[in-house]
């Protein structure tokens, strides 16, 4: 009987397990939050019948328009400011999007201790660097001006 030594490494299996859980959680939540939004069970910032007015605008104009017409905030709803609007169906959908976008950061953080234990310093340092880069991207500090 042939022995196939093709097993994935420990960190790979660990990474896959977290990725799978995060993916299913995010997708399941997305279906629920979208249903709450599109069925009108939760109120939305931009009325459903008016969303088509805004989706053809450049993003900066869109943010100015919805802030002027509906939100009336001091600042445009960029970065993590959507958290303040989580009671509205359209912005509640940002929760599963955030989970799906953030699960990779969690995967990397989980495998770092094991990499150090196995004296795999180069990969551990790369994993730390990746966590820092993804966290920087997620932080909203890299906001740029729009057109």
């Amino acid at each position, binding site marked *: 009987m042939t022995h*196939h*030594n*093709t097993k*994935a*490494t420990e*960190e*790979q*299996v660990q*990474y*896959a*397990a977290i*990725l799978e859980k995060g*993916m299913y959680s*995010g*997708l399941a939540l*997305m*279906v629920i*939050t*979208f249903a709450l*939004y*599109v069925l009108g069970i939760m109120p939305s910032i931009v*009325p*459903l*019948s*008016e*969303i*088509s*007015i*805004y*989706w*053809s*605008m450049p*993003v900066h104009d*869109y*943010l100015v328009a919805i802030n002027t017409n509906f939100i009336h905030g001091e600042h*445009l709803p*960029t970065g993590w400011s959507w958290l303040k609007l989580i009671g509205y169906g*359209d912005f509640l*959908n*940002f929760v599963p*999007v955030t989970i*799906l*976008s*953030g699960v*990779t950061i969690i995967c990397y953080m989980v495998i770092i201790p094991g990499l150090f234990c196995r004296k795999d310093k*180069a*990969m551990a340092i*790369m994993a730390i*660097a*990746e966590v820092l*880069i*993804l966290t*920087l*991207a*997620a932080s909203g500090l*890299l*906001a*740029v001006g*729009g*057109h």
Partner: protein
Amino acid sequence: MQGNIKEKVGMMFVSLMCTIMLSPAWALASEVVAMDQIPAAGDPGWWKWPVILLFVTFVMGIIAVLGGVGGGVLFVPIIGGFFPFHLDFVRGAGLLVALCGALAAGPGLLKANLASLRLAMPVALIASTMAIVGAMVGLALPTHIVQLALGGTILGIVAIMLSAKKSTVPHVPQADALSTALRITGVFYEPTTKEEINWKIHRTIPGLLTFIIIGFMAGMFGLGAGWANVPVLNLMMGAPLKISVATSKFLLSITDTSAAWIYLNKGCVIPMMVVPSLIGIMLGSFVGVRLLKVAKPTFIRWMVIIILLFAGLKAVQKGLSTMGYNLF
């Protein structure tokens, strides 16, 4: 006999879907919408575009699996060219579409040891950093410039798809120093030949440098970059084709995460666009995997190339018309 009927039905369905995708009616639709006055009051027919989007992305999901391309490379040029959504939102949605496809496939590919975490990590570090830069540059540039550049890139992808060869198990005489130091190597079992294949890579530094460009373009255009990852991993760095395809798919979950955050933080996510797109692509992929058994991959791949050629020309035309030049 039953197999022949199934094959014919499957091919007719896919041909019909491809014909619909190529229909000039889409071009007219986007022009009509652009010319319409923005309604002062709400639009009672607002739901039709998300429903059309769900249907179109479902077809895209099927064609992407059969044609061996990612969802992003079809999504951005087609939705950006033929739908009324602004390119900012299309790119944001495109990244999330590519990301979700990678998240769905990644765990299975990692567990099966077809995707290599050790190969992906150094590549992902470079590509994800550049994807952030690309996303920032893309969102800062005027839309018509991005549209033009997107059109040129899509036409370049068509050229790559027409000319790029594949190597099932490239000949790598010796692993180079960097890949040896990082222990980027592995073993996988090939069921068709019933053999274990030990693989190693070379040209690691040139490969990593190429990912600077790939990452930048992925972030700028929201395309996903699978179209570029596979040739670089397979032909330049020498990873076996299956390892390259699987690692590329997994890699998108890291590269696209970084760029997706930039678009998300900038507000380029409209749930009414993103969610139907994600559901459509994932359902379509599911069906595409089943149709794969009966479809002729070469025919589908040609249809994908023709669709991309049409979409690339449309993107160039849109960019030029904004600048006052009309191609057609």
